[in-house]
């Protein structure tokens, strides 16, 4: 297979979530949202959040972007359900650290480890982190996040 050596970046889980995201839609009811914009490449994502008490109950997103950014948004939506805003902000920081370093030693990020491969591709790190930037912006009431 010609691209076998790219499986570190495009693992099956990424291809699946990139192709058919489960959370790739605007929520009918949401209490927070924000857009994320990568002006260098044109990727755009809008994240919608619905809380139930202190915890996030549901996340949806609308995105136009590459497989990495869509898969990252989808995996993020699954990873943050049930967590508080503070926990999510912490998780976002750890995710960004993983995307930059490629280190998969953080057990809390287990479902997101598939995205650690982007660290080998500096121009693609922002594809993976953009949805998290948008989610963080939504949770603090900022409408817009930029990858830059």
């Amino acid at each position, binding site marked *: 297979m*010609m*691209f076998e*050596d*790219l499986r570190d*970046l*495009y693992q099956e889980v990424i*291809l699946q979530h990139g*192709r058919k995201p489960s959370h790739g839609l605007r929520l009918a009811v949401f209490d927070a949202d924000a857009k994320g914009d990568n002006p*260098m*490449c*044109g*990727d*755009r994502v809008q994240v919608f959040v619905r809380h139930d008490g202190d915890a996030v109950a549901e996340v949806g997103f609308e995105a*136009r*972007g*590459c*497989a*990495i950014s869509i898969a990252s948004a989808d995996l993020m939506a699954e990873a943050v359900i049930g967590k508080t805003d503070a926990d999510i902000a912490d998780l976002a920081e750890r995710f960004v650290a993983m995307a930059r370093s490629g280190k998969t030693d953080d057990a809390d990020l287990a479902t997101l480890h598939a995205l650690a491969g982007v660290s080998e*591709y500096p121009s*693609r790190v922002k*594809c993976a982190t953009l949805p998290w930037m948008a989610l963080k912006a939504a949770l603090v009431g900022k409408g817009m996040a930029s990858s830059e």
Partner: protein
Amino acid sequence: MNAIAKPGLDVARIRQDFPILSEKVRGKDLVFLDSAASAQKPRVVIDAMVHCMEHQYANVHRGLHWMSERTTEAYEEVRDSITRLLNAPDRSHIVITHSSTEAMNLVAFSYGRGVLKPGQAVVISEMEHHANLVPWQMLRDATGIELRIAPITDAGELDMLAYETLLADRKVGLVSITHMSNVLGTYTPAARIVQLGHQYGAKVMLDGSQSVVHRAVDVQALDVDFFAFTGHKLYGPTGIGALYAKRELLEQMPPMMGGGDMISSVSFERSTWAQVPHKFEAGTPAIIEGIGLNAAIKYVEAIGYDAIAAHEAALTEHALARLSAIEGLTVIGRGQDRGGVVSFTLEGAHAHDVATLLDRQGIAVRAGHHCAEPLMRRLGLDSTARASFGIYTTMAEIDALADTLDRVRAFFT
């Protein structure tokens, strides 16, 4: 200019002139299909720049010593080469800039603020690079000069009827349109654009950043008023470009930047400007880069534009045939008169993913909006992948691109 048309181009020999082409990328032979972003440099350009720094370097236009005089001669020779390249009447028409972006900003600033009047309009097209769009927005916002956008057809050609309609009220003072689209590969009908502009009383600038790489340009035959190009796409170094302008327009225009080199005399009360073109060239110029560009122009002239254009036409035809045969691939831009820049989308795969997979095979393409976001919106796209060709591009490299794209598609579906 070579008077004798050369039958073809010895690509194998040309490739030997470009040291970088023997580099490996990710263990694979480099297949460099991103020349429209910036072209690679032949040995003669590299050597000229190194020779300057090792043997013949000092500041120019000011020294009375041997080194400065020799360096001034070597640097100023590029103005003669550009004059020849564009068939300008003489070297006083050539303003040396750091880029085509600077050249167009110079016109937007000096001609836009110094000569155009509020109530007048500037026309650009829907397929401009940001460098030929943003300066005009800045002019509009600063002066109230109207900005009009000439539409393109779905095939990616300038809509000439709509263009003429925009000129009809004779309020347009300046037209600034690309000579070759960096996204669609379309050559615009430059002579007709200029002629129509003049018919309605407008001056006309062409953005020649892409066109001058592929085709002989004759500014006198085109009767164009301003022509901008950059060196680094023409196998020269970065940081050097030029603006051709008609002499009487340069005379009318105030300088954009003040400083050394652009003055005639300076006192605390007032200063007077140097003659054109020097009044637009404040500060120490890009000396080494100018010497490099001079070598690049001579290199291109020695190959000859007939051979270059024929090679590019053959490459483009082959690329369009091979790429169009790939299932799910759409070539963006189907202009009748087009050159070696081919943008495409691949169903089911985003352009960035396509570029990353191609890169893994050593194939360098560009992906994104290509500094032309409004054009992308016009086309209903966020991004495309773009393969672009140079004098060193081979048919085998286009085959490698097409073969790999077939597999990219399989990977994502």
